[in-house]
């Protein structure tokens, strides 16, 4: 057999049979309560809301909706734990508790991965290989810092901030919980954490682990709910520090809400990262970087490489390679081990993405979608690429938070840098070139907190993460991620 049309055909006779990860070992309860003071307790209002599997649209469980009274209970539990136990423990002992969490997470990794994929829609390949191992690694990394933090700040003595209120998003539910909880505890703080309303289950399973690890009651409190619950945390006067990951819009509201007090905050907000491909790049690896940049986690990534800037001399070549690569992406059942792109996290987010697909076309951009099949039920979006766009297009300016790539071309290095920086955001950026000197020049010119050179969307507990400009304030991860949770004296 041979090809005579000069194109590649990925519609092969040999395909991959379904390879679903078993969910038998995951026990999901019908109803989850709030985790306050080491116990699961019912919300005072008696209200519960549903969390659904976005791949099937079926309800997984009912979850308690925390009111401001419940938040107040959680804060009081955290304060009591802070003053009576946690801040008085030797740092080495705090570290040991955190190590325990890391270990139990590793032991129960499969269970967490399946639950994460069921509740949030992300492919099991990612929850298994990225989210859960990284979450465990975060606890492991910061556990070791607990009795060493003074060495991180030359000339200073450190002490904990107190009670931290932490609000996390739905795109990396357990991983974001780990990013928040691990450094807070290591530095001697206690926490009140609110997971996102569409993805609360792994945080609640984490609560069980924390109880198993025998942490003093109240050191970690987990309250579920939507925006009102988050607002109750932000507004609570006895919280010393707010850590928020989410949209720039909500970040702004939080910054304003905290303006009248000296409570500290860190914000990890939106992004619209440029992924810059120069003509001297390793093109096949660059294409892989584009794929990882925008289709990782359905594009529900604040640091996603959602703007592709490709040098004109290789633009056609790169796009052709990209389309061939997209032809092999598998969209579907998040629990199938071969799925590359899972379900969009919620109906609301799917509507947002679809709105942008409309806008992109209305503004005259050319839309290309991979021809893959998608299931009938559930929330799905095919990997999408817009070409023929410019800086003035909304799909270039605004964060879509979906598997949607806007492709622009440039001619010179300076033009690439100017376009990359022509945004209010500054979270991340990608640079692809085989020339080392150019990497250092351009990476220093891109105004963003994380720059991936010849790679994209890499994360590590030791690697600080956070934004310039409207992408946020403060860093999480690494040595620099300690500072938000410490007072320096």
């Amino acid at each position, binding site marked *: 057999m041979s090809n005579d049309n000069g194109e590649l055909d990925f519609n092969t006779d040999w395909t991959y049979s379904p390879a679903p990860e078993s969910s038998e070992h995951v026990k999901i309860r019908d109803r989850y309560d709030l985790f306050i003071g080491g116990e699961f307790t019912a919300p005072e209002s008696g209200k519960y809301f549903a969390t659904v599997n976005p791949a099937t649209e079926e309800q997984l469980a009912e979850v308690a909706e925390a009111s401001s009274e419940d938040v107040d209970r959680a804060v009081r539990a955290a304060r009591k734990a802070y003053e009576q136990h946690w801040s008085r423990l030797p740092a080495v002992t705090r570290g040991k508790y955190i190590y325990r969490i890391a270990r139990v997470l590793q032991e129960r990794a499969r269970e967490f991965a399946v639950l994460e994929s069921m509740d949030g829609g992300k492919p099991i390949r990612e929850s298994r290989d990225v989210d859960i191992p990284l979450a465990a690694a975060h606890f492991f990394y910061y556990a070791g810092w607990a009795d060493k933090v003074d060495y991180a700040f030359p000339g200073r003595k450190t002490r904990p901030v107190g009670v931290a209120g932490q609000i996390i998003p739905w795109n990396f539910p357990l991983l974001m919980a780990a990013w928040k909880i691990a450094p807070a505890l290591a530095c001697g703080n206690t926490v009140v954490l609110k997971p996102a309303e569409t993805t609360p289950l792994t945080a609640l399973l984490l609560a069980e682990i924390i109880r198993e690890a025998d942490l003093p009651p109240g050191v970690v409190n987990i309250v579920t709910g939507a925006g009102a619950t988050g607002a109750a945390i932000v507004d609570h006067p006895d919280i010393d520090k707010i850590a928020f990951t989410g949209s720039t819009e909500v970040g702004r509201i939080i910054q*304003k809400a905290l*303006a009248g007090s000296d409570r500290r905050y860190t914000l990890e907000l939106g992004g619209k990262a440029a992924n810059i491909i120069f003509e001297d790049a390793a093109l096949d690896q660059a294409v892989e970087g584009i794929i990882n940049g925008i289709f990782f986690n359905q594009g529900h990534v604040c640091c996603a490489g959602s703007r592709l800037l490709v040098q004109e001399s290789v633009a056609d070549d790169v796009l052709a390679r990209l389309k061939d690569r997209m032809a092999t992406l598998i969209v579907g059942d998040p629990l199938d081990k071969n799925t590359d792109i899972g379900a969009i996290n919620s109906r609301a987010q799917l509507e947002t993405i679809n709105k942008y697909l409309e806008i992109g076309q209305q503004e005259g951009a050319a839309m290309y979608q991979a021809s893959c099949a998608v299931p009938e039920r559930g929330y799905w979006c095919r990997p999408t690429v817009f070409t023929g766009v410019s800086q003035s297009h909304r799909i270039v300016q605004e964060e879509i938070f979906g598997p949607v790539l806007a492709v622009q071309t440039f001619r010179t290095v300076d033009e690439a840098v100017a376009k990359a920086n022509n945004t209010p955001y500054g979270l991340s950026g990608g640079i692809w070139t085989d020339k080392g000197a150019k990497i250092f020049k351009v990476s220093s010119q891109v105004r963003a*907190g994380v720059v991936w050179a010849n790679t994209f969307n890499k994360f590590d507990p030791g690697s600080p993460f956070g934004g310039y400009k409207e992408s946020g304030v403060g860093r999480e991860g690494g040595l620099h991620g300690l500072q938000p949770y410490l007072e320096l004296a």
Partner: protein
Amino acid sequence: MANDEKLIARAGRQGEPAATSGVSQKPRKLAVASEPERVGVLKTYKLYIGGNFPRTESGRFFKIVDRKGEPLANMCRASRKDFREAVVAARAAFAGWSAASAYLRGQILYRVAEMLEGRKEQFVTELFALGATRPAAQGEVEEAIDRLVYFAGWCDKYQQVFSSVNPVSSSHFNFSMLEPTGVVVLVAPDKHPLLGLVANLAPAIAGGNTVVALASEQLPTAAVSFAEVLHSSDVPAGVVNLLSGYRQELLEHFAAHMDVNALVYCGSDPGQIQQVRTLAADNIKRVIVRGLSSWNDDDSRNPYFIADTQEVKTTWHPVGR
């Protein structure tokens, strides 16, 4: 401070025209001798924007009186448009200044110290006129000089203290280093009008930021004169822009400006702090509040003052053949 305040009159009222001949550095006496006494040349205090010394575009002034209540100077009462121009100048200067080598920035800061040392008497005189005792004035100027030297020395060192090479588990070389936040607005303190400015300005520019500073409203002359030192010290135009004016009037424009990346507020007025923080949220501006009661100790003499207006950038590189 309380004593100082007694000696110093409040700034003049809004829109008050400059007195034509009421400005003096000495109490005036009638010359009775046959030889006429030399008439002093009085100083015009102006703004410092983009390396130029313009008057305020608004034409508005406010009056400063000396320790005896005698008129001392007419200060430009900078408007929002003056501020806007200053931000334009600071933004334009940012690319060059932030890319200047740490060594060069250190050299330039040291040069500023040298220039100030050479003009020490002028500043002592100005601070004295503003109500400081001579020893206090001398001490403040000397500490300001020393502070410049201190931060000149940090220019090529803070990066080594605050950067990190991060051992990631994949095959990547990963490092984090500091980069300047961008355009920083500095609301300088009233206490120690020269040292307070220098203590907050030096770390910001040592770190590669460009700055728009508002001098002490109460005691602005020495701070405004400091622009002359900067101007003669190889500091590129636009790296530091100095305004004089009414703090309360300008704050909202400072905090709301969408092309300002950070705001350093020196003071402790809760209303002003809340206002600044609220408006700053519109572009997620970094707000640094420094409510120190003194600028003459290690609370302000430390490299964390540089780190306050820095961003941490983390870069990943593959390690392969």
